[in-house]
């Protein structure tokens, strides 16, 4: 079993391009913040519901946008997104994220 995981990890380290690894690290970070917030809300209650929703949606939104970025920039998906250069994908991601964060700060109250 342990051998299986180490093989999978070695495969990941060797086969996945560096940029995708950076994306994956960010995804793990975002996922953790989302889980922590949800747990916190489950413990203290929903009282400042708008604050919880804003912060939680910020995590979820960022996660979704970043997964999109990963799909666009993955070399294996080149055939599916022929018109997407990796730089254009990143610009899309940045623009969408800015709008998301503005909305989140507005709603955080």
């Amino acid at each position: 079993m342990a051998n299986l995981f180490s093989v999978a990890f070695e495969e990941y380290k060797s086969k996945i391009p560096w940029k995708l690894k950076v994306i994956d690290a960010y995804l793990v970070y975002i996922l953790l913040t989302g889980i922590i917030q949800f747990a916190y809300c489950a413990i203290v209650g929903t009282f400042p519901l708008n604050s919880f929703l804003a912060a939680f949606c910020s995590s979820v939104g960022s996660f979704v946008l970043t997964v999109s970025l990963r799909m666009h920039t993955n070399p294996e998906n080149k055939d599916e997104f022929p018109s997407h250069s990796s730089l254009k994908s990143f610009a899309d991601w940045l623009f969408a994220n800015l709008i998301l964060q503005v909305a989140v700060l507005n709603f955080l109250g």
Partner: protein
Amino acid sequence: MDWRKRSIFALLLLIFWVGSVEVEGELGGRRVLMIIDDLSNQENYSTILKYLQEDGFQVTVKEETEDTLVMYDGVSFMYDSIILLAPKARSLGRGMPIEGLDDFLMQGNSILLGMDPVYSDFMKKIALSFGVELDRKRSYVIDHGSFHKDLDKGDHTAVISGGHSISSPLTDGAELSGISFRGVGAALVEDNELVEKLLWGSETSFSYKPSDDVVTPPLVTGTDCVLAAAVQTRKQSRAVYAGSIEMFQNEMMDSAGGDHRRFVLSLLTWTLGSKGLLRADKIRWHRVGEEDQKATYRVKDDLVVKVNIMEWYYKQQQWEPFASDDVQIEFTSMDPYARVRLVPQGNGSFEADVPVPDHYGVFKLEINHFRQGYTPISMYETMSIRPFWHNEYPRFILRAYPYYLSAVLNLVGVFVFAVAYLYSKEPKAKAVKAAASKTVKAE
């Protein structure tokens, strides 16, 4: 029901409900006009006449056919109350149409209408405008189970009533028995909510012609047999119907017993405004801790609501504080959101703490105080309830600090990721090492 009946109701309802100006000042003038069918029968009413005169009323007795029967001089009414004991009358004297009675009531004056099985269409119309539908002419309330043995002539029409309204203004809350009645049966008009039954027949009573066999269903039976009824207006006036003029006459007053006498005299003086006349001033309110009244409040505010209710004391001829612990106020917007009991403060002022519901819109503070024997109080004031303003919400709640922190960290995270994504490169050494280990593994 034909259109004519309906139009009379509509007119009466309009008159009773449209006017919102409260009658201020003195009430209960003492000029009473009594109209009877035949002046030679005046002696029949000597008991009630004597009682009214001793009570301080100036009673003028007139006959319907007299030329001198004038109750309206073109400017004002010359009497404060009318006792109509003339079931056969076809008019109310010169210059007084049937609609004149509505004006009469609107000015705070009261009417007692006595009926008999032999009545004119004119009088039937008046009874109908009071919300009482009479049975056919010459039909009596008959009761084979409950009749007065001395007064009855064999046809069981001198009935003993089954019950009466025991409201405190009418009989001081006492339940009287043995109230006799010989007269016409009647039913309350169904779509008139304002008329209340004062006296009704026993379980075995019904309304029919005594000479006929009962072949068709009677108009009314049992306790639905209305013997007396009343409509009270918000102008502190009363329109009272009684189906029998004989119950006011000496013969029945003398021989039907003390309870009968007490009830009839109570009914008379109650009609003339002895008790239960209420006057309510405008509803006032302010927020707890404030003094002034505003037109707009916020959801979840706490209001103090006040209203003054006075009762007319006719012996003292003045308004005195009304004391009752069952006056309620409602905070409504279509449906009541809060219903609170008003606490009497002793000086006629009633007060209640009313919480503003967590719901915004146009709300009414509404008092609907309908109690038997008392003047109905039905009034409301409107106010707007607004939601929290944007700057009225709490900010920087301690509990929400993790969320703030998380949102800011996400913002920073976007920046850090952007830099890392654009400018970082795979470390060369590691890449070589990884490739090397891969070759080792493969071997």
